């Protein structure tokens, strides 16, 4: 009897070892390799940049604390310089020769759309947190892509709607001349027109423009009540700063920064930024959990508080790793399917889900930038003005034109 039991135990043990071996074989190269790709040195470098690498590392460490899978995880990073050709070359090289399984962050919509294509072709996984274009879950949606953080539809329906509701019914757009600006302008114009407002004109400026005075004069001449800034990062900062100089706000026109990050507010200073209405899905000072995480982040990032992109990278990587563990594979297509199957739960965005079109949904906040005298110090910048529930914050599933929804 004991003999038999011993034998059974040995057999079970052997079977389990074999199973474990099989499981390990499902992870390509024996290691889950994550590539953080973003603008490391240009105008968007503070939004993502090296901070995203810090966030990804934190996600891996926090995952390993609770995970029993014993996965070997490695993180690499690269600068895409906001150029689609550089982005897709890096993605190909990562996948073909370095065994990268998943790419995360990738701000700059034009680059994100290019990388989206490469990843789909190669059957890997893409967790995009940095780019804004809603096309990633619309006509360019892919079974290999999760769009985690925000998109142009959400921004338009946050800030855009709030501004129209307070009487800003005629608009002039200052648009960054590439995929992101065009998408943001299109989605915001739709919101404005739906609410009975009118778009009086627009001007498209090259990415990373220094001087906006010429464009601002055109906006001023349009007599529109609202000047919508469909740009980001350094471009938004310079537009807002120079609008103040040309007396645009004193002249009765209102600026609507459609995509403003906390790092931009930090760069502008509260004196210039006060009163701006901003839509974001994360702010470090929302609750105890976000505060705790952000403090840990800041300690490792030279005292700088996280942007919403950093929070997105952390939560996206965490959920990806959970899906790898649950699905026992780092195959891109299978893991992304698993990410959609598992409900999301993390300290920064709370509970949520990844929809079939790849859209991650969570509540979104409408913030107003504090006056200098209301702020207690650096990074104490926002009042929460409204919380938009997850189901209203993002474009309804059937309106995006994503092919995955129909099937």
């Amino acid at each position, binding site marked *: 009897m004991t003999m038999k039991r011993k034998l059974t135990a040995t057999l079970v043990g052997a079977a389990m070892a074999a199973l474990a071996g099989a499981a390990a074989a499902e992870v390509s190269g024996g290691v889950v390799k994550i590539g953080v790709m973003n603008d490391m*040195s*240009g*105008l*968007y*470098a*503070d*939004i993502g*940049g090296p901070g995203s690498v810090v966030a990804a590392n934190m996600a891996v460490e926090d995952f390993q604390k609770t995970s029993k899978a014993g996965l070997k995880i490695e993180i690499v990073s690269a600068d895409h310089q906001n150029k689609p050709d550089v982005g897709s070359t890096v993605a190909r090289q990562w996948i073909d020769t370095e065994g990268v399984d998943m790419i995360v962050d990738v701000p700059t919509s034009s680059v994100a759309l290019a990388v989206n294509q490469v990843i789909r072709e190669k059957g890997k996984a893409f967790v995009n947190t940095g780019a804004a274009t809603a096309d990633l879950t619309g006509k360019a949606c892919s079974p290999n892509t999760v769009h985690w953080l925000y998109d142009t539809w959400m921004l338009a329906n946050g800030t855009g709607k709030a501004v129209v509701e307070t009487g800003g019914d005629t608009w002039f757009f200052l648009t960054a*001349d590439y995929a992101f600006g065009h998408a943001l302008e299109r989605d915001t114009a739709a919101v404005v027109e739906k609410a009975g407002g009118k778009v009086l004109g627009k*001007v*498209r*400026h*090259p990415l*990373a*423009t*220094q*001087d906006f*005075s*010429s*464009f601002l*004069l*055109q906006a*001023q*001449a349009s007599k529109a009540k609202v000047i919508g800034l469909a740009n980001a*990062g*350094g471009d938004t*900062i*310079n537009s807002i*700063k*120079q609008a103040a*100089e*040309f*007396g645009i706000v004193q*002249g009765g026109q209102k600026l609507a920064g459609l995509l403003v990050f906390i*790092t*931009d507010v*930090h*760069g*502008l*200073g509260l*004196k*210039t930024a006060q009163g701006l209405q901003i839509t974001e899905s994360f702010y470090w000072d929302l609750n105890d959990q976000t505060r705790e995480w952000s403090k840990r982040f800041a300690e490792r990032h030279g005292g*700088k508080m996280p942007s919403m992109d950093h929070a997105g990278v952390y939560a996206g990587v965490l959920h990806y790793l959970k899906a790898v563990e649950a699905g026992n594979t780092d195959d891109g297509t299978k893991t992304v399917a698993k990410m959609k199957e598992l409900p999301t739960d993390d300290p920064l965005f709370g509970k949520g889900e990844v929809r079939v079109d790849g859209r991650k949904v969570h509540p979104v906040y409408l913030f107003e930038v504090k006056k200098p005298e209301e702020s207690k110090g650096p990074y104490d910048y926002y009042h929460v003005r409204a919380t938009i529930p997850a189901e209203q914050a993002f474009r309804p599933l059937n309106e995006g034109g994503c092919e995955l929804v129909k099937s």
Partner: protein
Amino acid sequence: MEIFGIPTQALFGQLLIGLINGSFYALLSLGLAVIFGLLNIINFTHGAQYMMGAFAAYLLLNKAGLGYWWALLLAPIIVGFTGVLIERFMLKRLYNLDHLYGLLLTFGVALIIQGLFRNEYGASGLPYQMPPQLTGGTNLGFMFLPNYRAWVIIASLVVCLGTWFVIERTKLGSYLRAATENPQLVQSFGINVPRMITLTYGFGVGLAALAGVMAAPIYQVSPQMGADLIIVVFAVVVIGGMGSILGSIITGFGLGLIEGLTKVFYPEASNTVIFVIMAIVLLFKPAGLFGTQK
């Protein structure tokens, strides 16, 4: 009244704006022209030095409590001094070599400087307030002209013409020009040519820093500010004719105007129009509009 569908009033506004941007081009390309004309060095660090000027203003204000007017005086001296060090320890060794080596060295130095500033201050940049004496603006009827921008045009014109005058019309300038023609001969007259060259480089760098201080209240003080501008400024210098002082001033203002008009008629092309002009000019006048073939 309208011209090509644009009201004349708006057109005047845009021309004035073009002139303001031209002031920056002129100031920066002037420094480049002085350095190239007298040292034969293509100073790719110029953009980084412009950025350092803006940062010097920011640091003087926040660390030493010295405001804009002090910065206007001190930042060029401080940054000019760093230029002197670069010339003394690095550039000096390259004078006998091909232009390419100077270009590579200065480009590398620029990347290092920008990287250091980005590590320390981030990419979004820092705010710098306008001096209180120059806030507000004047309504010219056809546009609202911020006082600060008016000041930029005037200051830039004065500095540009002053520099041109010193180099082309004074004894000191004649020494400088002679030293570039034949350094040995000038040296034999008892003039310390190496020191003169060092100081010239310092002066050119100081001009970049001055432009940086003037730019600080308008643009974000950011590590990237020079890198974005320098390529355009090089195009300006090439169009004007490498090393031609007057050429760089006139071309700087002129291209500012053309760029301003492009921003009205076809904004999408506003960052390429200067390069198109450069290509055309090089086709017909390879030495640039005001350059002389050596």
